[in-house]
């Protein structure tokens, strides 16, 4: 399971920075993305995005422009091509343009910042994405979030509710995970302010600084949490709720951060969790073994916590259960996971 952001862990911590940047910029509906590099950089990364989402039955093909660099642009510099492509993108009247730079643009020393910094009438944001400087999907993703934070003006009040930061736009259960967090916040009588960045417009994003707390999708986004803490004095929580006890602790942490009592909410959540053992009573006494698929880490206390709560034994001889690709979020995530376990056990 992917809680440990080590480089051995998962493709998210490998791969290309461009894909990471695109997995952010493509989810601002009124912004356009320009990939400053050869046509293949845009094509390949957009295809990857498209194919990943299609696999989840989501049809999504955001408009992405490419500067389409060719050999003469490499020899003479690609800044003119970038300028022309930004102009072309602006014809569609976007509220912002995200420029994703590539390895070759950085290698030949194109001053992408200078081109983006001209007075274009709307924000043109440079997302640094040359993979040869180090980094992976995750760095591209985090850097893009940081740069897009530049769209956010300082706010005078902190009454805007809770910001959700760095949702994994490409993960299968992205909406279910958000809904679970929103449900838990609702139990505490708190609202979501801005989803940074998932299907929020440039105007929506500008309300970010009015949020009273930032909840990060996962601990790997801590640099972003610290960034906003410094920029807007917003506290942050490092990740979405994970595990039965973890979900209750999440409620307590949010309550503390927002100055609201959480005891009642925690008690309600605990009884909701108790209902799980009744719902999955048919699994009581069964034996399971956790299969890591060869690359996922099975040493994960969440899984044994859930198994114990339901009365499942973890035994090498038991039915093989795949370790989930991402940790299930909240009580609802655990419930979905248990449904899956039941299918394996009763197959």
């Amino acid at each position, binding site marked *: 399971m992917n809680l440990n952001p080590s480089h051995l862990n998962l493709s998210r911590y490998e791969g290309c920075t461009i894909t990471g940047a695109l997995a952010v910029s493509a989810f601002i509906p009124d912004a356009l993305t320009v990939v400053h590099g050869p046509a293949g950089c845009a094509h390949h990364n957009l295809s990857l995005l498209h194919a990943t989402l299609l696999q989840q039955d989501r049809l999504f093909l955001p408009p992405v422009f490419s500067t389409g660099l060719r*050999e*003469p*642009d*490499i*020899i*003479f*510099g*690609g*800044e003119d091509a970038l300028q022309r492509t930004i102009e072309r993108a602006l014809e569609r009247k976007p509220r912002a343009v995200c420029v994703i730079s590539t390895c070759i643009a950085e*290698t*030949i*020393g*194109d001053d992408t910042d200078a081109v983006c910094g001209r007075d274009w009438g709307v924000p043109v944001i440079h997302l640094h994405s040359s993979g040869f400087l180090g980094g992976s999907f995750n760095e591209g993703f985090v850097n893009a979030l940081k740069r897009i934070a530049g769209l956010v003006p300082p706010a005078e009040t902190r009454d805007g509710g809770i910001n959700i930061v760095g949702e994994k736009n490409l993960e299968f259960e992205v909406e279910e995970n958000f809904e679970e967090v929103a449900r838990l916040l609702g139990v505490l009588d708190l609202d979501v302010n801005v989803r940074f960045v998932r299907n929020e417009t440039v105007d929506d994003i500008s309300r970010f600084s009015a949020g009273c707390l930032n909840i990060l999708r996962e601990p790997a986004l801590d640099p972003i949490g610290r960034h906003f803490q410094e920029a807007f004095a917003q506290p942050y929580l490092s990740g979405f709720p994970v595990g039965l006890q973890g979900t209750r602790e999440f409620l307590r942490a949010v309550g503390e951060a927002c100055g609201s009592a959480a005891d009642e909410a925690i008690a309600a959540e605990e009884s909701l969790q108790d209902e799980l053992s009744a719902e999955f009573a048919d699994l009581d006494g069964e034996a399971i073994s956790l299969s890591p698929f060869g690359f996922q880490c099975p040493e994960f206390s969440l899984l044994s916590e859930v198994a114990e709560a339901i009365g499942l034994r973890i035994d090498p001889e038991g039915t093989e259960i795949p370790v989930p690709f991402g940790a299930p979020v909240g009580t609802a995530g655990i419930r979905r996971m248990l449904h899956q376990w039941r299918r394996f056990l009763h197959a």
Partner: protein
Amino acid sequence: MKQIALYGKGGIGKSTTSANLSAALADTGLDIMQIGCDPKHDSTRMLMHGTWIPTVLDLVREKGDERISADQVVFKGYRGIRCVEAGGPEPGVGCAGRGIIATFQLLERLDALHGDVIVYDVLGDVVCGGFAMPMREGYAQEIYLVTSGELMSLYAANNICKAIARLSRRVRSKCALGGVICNSANIAEENVLVEEFARRINSRLIAYVPRDRIVQVAEINRQTVIEYAPDSAQAGVYRALAAGVLEITNTDLTIPTPLEMDELESLALEFV
């Protein structure tokens, strides 16, 4: 066909030496081509009587490389020497090294690389893979280092030796060091110093070109010394250089053994 490349520190006189070498070779009746491989594109100017010929990369920029013909990039100068300038991007942008690679690929496609001798006049420092292009892919097979006795000039020549030694380790490498040309900076015992440098890098001094005012006078008159003052002593020096280069055969070529910086410094110290 003999293909030679002159490398050396910027401002050391590569272009003057190359142009006079080409002119002297052409005087013997050989079919000569000179290719300037420096974004400054001033290699062939004296052979072209002061004309700045359009560079290959200027044409690529204007027309795209599909619509260029050989007669648009190859210009005939003194005694029919075919002159080409690679050119490059505006200073400070783009990638000049890639420009050199593109130029060679274009010349190859246009079938423009032919003659008895092709002289490649290359930018001072082999700053990247692109500027090593004349040494690669079997283009220039003989490298000549142009240097004075000044330490930084020897340092640059020594760096080029590193590039040759590195490239020579490649399986299909055909390039090796032909020799060292001393272009004098009026330093005492300079020829002895450069000769010793050449010996220590496993090469030989093939010509000592003294400093002579006639070079500047010819340049002001937009000609090589060979053309402007054929009877001068300096013209004789260049003719001797040409004869020396023609005499170099494959068995004379060496893989250089570059010096460490402290070896280079102690060598220079011996001659202070």
